[in-house]
C-alpha cells in the first residue's frame, strides 16, 4: 500500500452541471481531465490521501466577507456557494486535524471578486479564499494569515478585500499587469494606510518560466513569510502560468508548479484559474497534490514537455533577480503612493479613495467611494459607497477588535443612511458582534 508522508484532503468539485456559457473557458469540461487523471493514478487509494465533498457556503458566510448588492442571491449561483463551501471544507479538514494539508479543487474561481460585489469579474463572483479566511477567523479564532496568489492574473479582488487588514499578508505573483487582465498588481500597490506593506505585488514579465517563479518563491516569498509568521499559509493556486495556457503568456511546467508548492508548503491550497484543461490542469493539479502529500513527483511530465523550449530568457532571469533584491523594501519600508483621489488621501478623520471597477463579464462600470476611519485605537471603520448607473448602495464594516467609538459610528452611519434614504441597499458587517444585516429591497 502506498502511503503519503503527510495526510492530504482533496475537495474535488468539478461542478459538472454549471458553466457561464457553453464555450466559456470556465466551463463544465474544466476539471474533467483532472478528475480522470487523479482517478487513473489511483491517488485516493494512497494511504493518507482522501477525497471529500464540499460544504455549501451559506448566505451569511458570503455576507461576512462581501458587500453584495442588491443581495447575495442576485450575484451568486449555487455553484458559487458550493465553490466557496469547498474552500471552507478544505479549511475545516486542516483545522480539525483530519488532514495535515488540504487542496480545494473547485470551480468557479474567486480571486477577482472584490469587497463589494455587483456581478462577475474575470469569471469570479465571490472570493472563495476570503470567504474561507473570514469563516476561519469567526469559527476558529485565526488571526494572522498569509495568502500567496500564484495565479497568472493579479489577485486584485483579494488585494481589495485585505487592503486595510494588517493581519493578512497578501502576496501575488502574476504576469505583468501591462500585458494582461485585470491590468493591476504593481509594487506601488502595497496596502492602505493602516496595512502598508501587507500587500506585495510581484509582476513577472511574459515568458517567465520555472526558474523565475522558483527564484521568487525562494528568495522573496519565503523570507517574507518567515518574517510575517502567519498562523496559516494559503495558496491561491491558479494554474494558468502553464506554458500551454490559452489566455496567458508564461512558461511554467507541472514540475515547476509541484516544486513551487513544495517550497511554499501551504496549509491549504484553493484552485483559482487555469484554462489549459487538457494539456496542463491534469498534470499541474496532480503535481500539487503529490507535493502537498509529500510524495514523489519526479516522474510527472506533460506529454509535450521540452525543457529546452521552456528555458526563460536571460533578461528575464536578470530582471527577476533584481526584483527579488528590491521587493523586500515594500514589506519592510513601504513607499507611500502619491496622495490623490485614486490612490487615497486624507479627508478629516477619513482616508478616502475613489475606485472605478469594470465588470468584464457583465460589461458595466461601478464607481466606488471607499472610506477608512482613521481611528488610532483600532483598525478603523470601513465604508464603501457603490454606484452602478443611478443605483447607489452602501456597505459598512465594523472590523475585528473595533473600538466602541468605531462600533457606534458604524451603527449611526447605517441608521442615518436609512433615515435619509440616500441608498437603495445598505449592508452592515459587524465583526465584533458577528452580525450581518442588510436593509433595502
Amino acid at each position: 500500500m502506498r502511503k503519503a508522508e503527510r495526510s492530504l484532503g482533496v475537495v474535488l468539485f468539478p461542478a459538472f452541471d454549471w458553466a457561464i456559457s457553453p464555450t466559456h473557458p470556465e466551463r463544465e469540461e474544466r476539471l474533467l481531465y483532472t478528475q480522470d487523471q487523479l482517478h487513473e493514478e489511483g491517488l485516493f487509494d494512497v494511504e493518507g490521501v482522501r477525497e471529500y465533498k464540499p460544504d455549501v457556503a451559506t448566505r451569511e458566510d458570503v455576507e461576512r466577507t462581501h458587500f453584495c448588492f442588491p443581495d447575495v442571491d442576485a450575484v451568486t449561483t449555487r455553484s458559487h456557494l458550493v465553490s466557496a463551501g469547498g474552500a471552507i471544507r478544505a479549511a475545516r479538514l486542516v483545522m480539525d486535524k483530519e488532514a495535515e494539508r488540504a487542496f480545494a479543487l473547485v470551480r468557479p474561481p474567486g480571486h477577482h471578486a472584490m469587497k463589494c460585489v455587483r456581478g462577475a469579474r474575470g469569471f469570479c463572483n465571490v472570493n472563495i479564499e476570503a470567504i474561507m479566511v473570514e469563516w476561519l477567523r469567526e469559527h476558529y479564532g485565526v488571526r494572522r494569515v498569509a495568502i500567496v496568489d500564484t495565479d497568472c492574473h493579479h489577485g486584485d479582488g483579494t488585494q481589495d478585500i485585505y487592503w486595510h487588514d494588517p493581519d493578512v499578508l497578501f502576496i501575488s505573483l502574476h504576469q505583468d499587469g501591462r500585458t494582461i487582465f485585470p491590468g493591476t498588481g504593481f509594487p506601488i500597490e502595497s496596502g492602505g494606510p493602516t496595512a502598508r506593506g501587507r500587500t506585495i505585488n510581484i509582476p513577472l514579465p511574459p515568458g517567465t518560466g520555472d526558474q523565475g517563479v522558483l527564484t521568487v518563491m525562494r528568495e522573496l516569498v519565503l523570507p517574507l513569510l518567515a518574517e510575517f509568521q502567519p498562523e496559516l499559509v494559503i495558496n491561491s493556486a491558479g494554474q494558468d502560468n502553464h506554458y500551454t495556457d490559452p489566455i496567458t503568456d508564461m512558461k511554467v511546467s507541472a514540475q515547476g508548479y509541484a516544486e513551487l508548492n513544495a517550497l511554499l508548503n501551504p496549509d491549504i491550497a484553493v484552485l483559482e484559474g487555469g484554462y489549459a484543461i487538457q494539456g496542463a490542469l491534469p498534470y499541474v493539479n496532480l503535481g500539487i497534490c503529490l507535493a502537498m502529500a509529500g510524495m514523489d513527483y519526479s516522474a510527472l511530465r506533460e506529454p509535450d514537455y521540452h525543457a529546452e523550449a521552456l528555458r526563460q530568457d536571460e533578461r528575464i532571469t536578470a530582471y527577476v533577480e533584481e526584483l527579488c533584491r528590491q521587493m523586500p523594501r515594500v514589506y519592510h519600508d513601504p513607499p507611500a503612493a502619491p496622495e490623490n483621489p485614486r490612490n487615497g488621501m486624507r479627508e478629516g478623520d477619513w482616508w478616502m479613495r475613489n475606485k472605478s471597477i469594470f465588470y468584464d463579464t457583465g460589461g458595466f462600470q461601478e464607481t466606488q467611494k471607499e472610506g477608512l476611519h482613521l481611528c488610532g485605537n483600532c483598525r478603523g471603520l470601513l465604508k464603501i459607497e457603490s454606484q452602478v448607473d443611478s443605483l447607489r448602495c452602501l456597505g459598512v464594516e465594523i472590523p475585528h477588535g473595533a473600538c466602541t467609538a468605531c462600533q457606534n459610528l458604524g451603527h449611526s452611519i447605517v441608521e442615518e443612511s436609512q433615515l435619509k434614504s440616500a441608498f437603495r441597499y445598505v449592508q452592515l458587517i459587524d465583526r465584533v458582534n458577528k452580525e450581518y444585516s442588510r436593509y433595502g429591497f
Partner: protein
Amino acid sequence: MYLGIDVGGTHTDAVALDLSGPGVEVVAACKVKTRHDDLLGSVNEALERILRGVDRKLVRRLNLSTTLSTNAIVEGRAEDVGVLVVPGPGMDPSEYMLCKDFHVLDGAMDHRGNETARLDKAQCSAALEACRRDGVRAFALVGKFSVRNPLHENTLRHWLCHTKDEKGCERADFVTLGHHLGGRLNYPRRVASAYFNCAVWRLYNQFADAVEASLGRMGLGHVRVNVLKADGGTMPLAYSRKMPVQSIFSGPAASVMGIIALCEIIHDSVILDIGGTTTDIAVFADGAPLLERAGIEIGSHPTLVRALKVKSIGVGGDSALSMIGDLVRVGPRRLGPSMAEGGRHPTLTDALNCRGLCEVGDLEASRRGVAAYAESHTISPEKLAAQAVEAAARTIHEETRSLVAEINDRPVYTIHELIEGKRIVPRKLYLMGGPAKAMRMPLFGCFQLASEAPEHFAVANAIGAALTRTTTDVELFADTQKHVMFLPGLGHHENIPASYNLENAKRDAMNHLLAHLADLKLASDAERAEITHASSFNMVEGMNTVGRNIRVKCQIKPGVERTLR
C-alpha cells in the same frame, strides 16, 4: 430446482430450492465442515446430502460461491505472473510492484486516449524474454488510460503471442489485458486486478474442471453452473474461467442476497450478519444494496473488482470478553469457541447464555466461566454479562453509524447531486447469523430501530447464492472529435459520426449489454438492465465546440430471481 452452495471459512452451506410452485420451497438444506485442503470434496459432500431424494433431472441450475481464489492468494499459492506495465508520466509505478517479473515499459497514453509516446519494441521483447526465461506462462499487460485506448495492451499481446486470436498461444497459457477488466479509471487497481486474475487462473480452472467432472458423474451434467461475484451477482462458469478474480470475496454477497430473498427490504436499512468471529455490516439505500465505490482490496492491494459495500468488524459470538479497568470489552480477539461449546475463555455467546437471551450448548459451562472471570476482576457475574452484551451491541452500533456517515460523506460531482443529494437514514435492521436472534433486543436498545431476524437465517447465504441473478455491467466511452466509441470491458470499438450524442451512447451501451448477455446465453434479464451513469461534455478549442466527450455506464441490476416472502 435450483441449488445453492456457499463454501465458507468454517462451513459449506447448501440448499435445494423448488421453484415449480407459486413460491420458493426449501426442499433440502445442510451444513458440512469445509475442508480447505479438499474444497471439491466439501462441495461434493454437500451436493450428495441435499440431493438425497431429489430427482436430479429436475435440477436446472447450481450457483456456487467459493473461497478458492481468495485462499490461494492469502496462502501464497498463486502462480508466477509476468506483469508488463506502460505507466507513462505520473506517479512512480514501482511503488505497486506486485511480483518478481514486473516490467515497466516506455510508452504513454493521455486521458483522452491519444498516444503521446510509443512502445519500444526491443525493450518489450527483452521484457517478454526475461519472463519466459523465468518460466512464466501467465501474463498481465496493463497500460495507463488503456480504457481510453487499448493500443498498447493489444500491441503487447500481439508481440507476445504473434497472433490476434483471443485464445492462448504457444508462448503463454493465459493473458489478461487491463482494459478487459472494465472501463473504470484507476491504473494501480487495474494492474493489481490483472495480476490477481492471472495468479489464480490455473488453480481456478482446475477447480472448475473438477466441479464439471463431478457434476457429470453425479448425473448433473445438464445443470447450468454459475459462480457468485462479490457485487451480488453471478457469472456463468465458462465466463468465470477467464475472469476468476471476480469470484473473490463473494461470501458476504451471498449473505446479503440471502437477506433480500428472505425479507422485503424497501427503505434505507442496515443488514447485520453476526457470525462467530465477525459481524458484517451492509447498508441498503431504498431497498438496494450499496456497492464499494471503486472495488475490493485483495491482500491489501486495491482492485477494480466490484463488490458490495460490506464492513467487517471483530465482534461475533466467539469473540472473547476482556476487561480494561472497569470497562468490559468484547472482541476483536477470538480465543477459541465459547465455553458453552467446550472453550476455555468466556465469549459473547456465554454472556448471552447467562442473560437468558439464547440457549447455546452447555448453559452451566457458560455460567461457570463468566462467574470465574468476573470474580478474577472483582465484578459481579450479572454485571459482567450485562455489560458484555451491551458493549457488543454498542460497538456494532457505533461502527454502523460511522459506516453510514462515511457513505453520506462520499464525494459527488454535480451541484444537483450535492444540493438534492440523498442522505442515507437507516429505518430498519435486518439480522442474520448465529447470534442474530439473541442480539436482537440489545441492538434494538442502541439503534432504536425496528429489527427483524428472518426464518432460515442459518442457511440464508446458500439460499442467497441459489437465487442470485446473473449480472454484468458495461462502460462506454465516446469521443466525437476523434470519432471513436469504445467499450473497454468487451474490447469493442467502432467509428462514430460527429453527430453522435448522449442518447446514441445510452442506446448503444444498452444494446451491447444485452448482446453480451445473449453471448452468455442469458437473454431473459433485459427488464433489469439500467443506465447508472450518463454524462456528456462539450469539448472546446478556442471558442468552438469541437466534439463531445461521452461516458455511459449500464448494468443488470444485482438481485435475486425469486424470494421466499
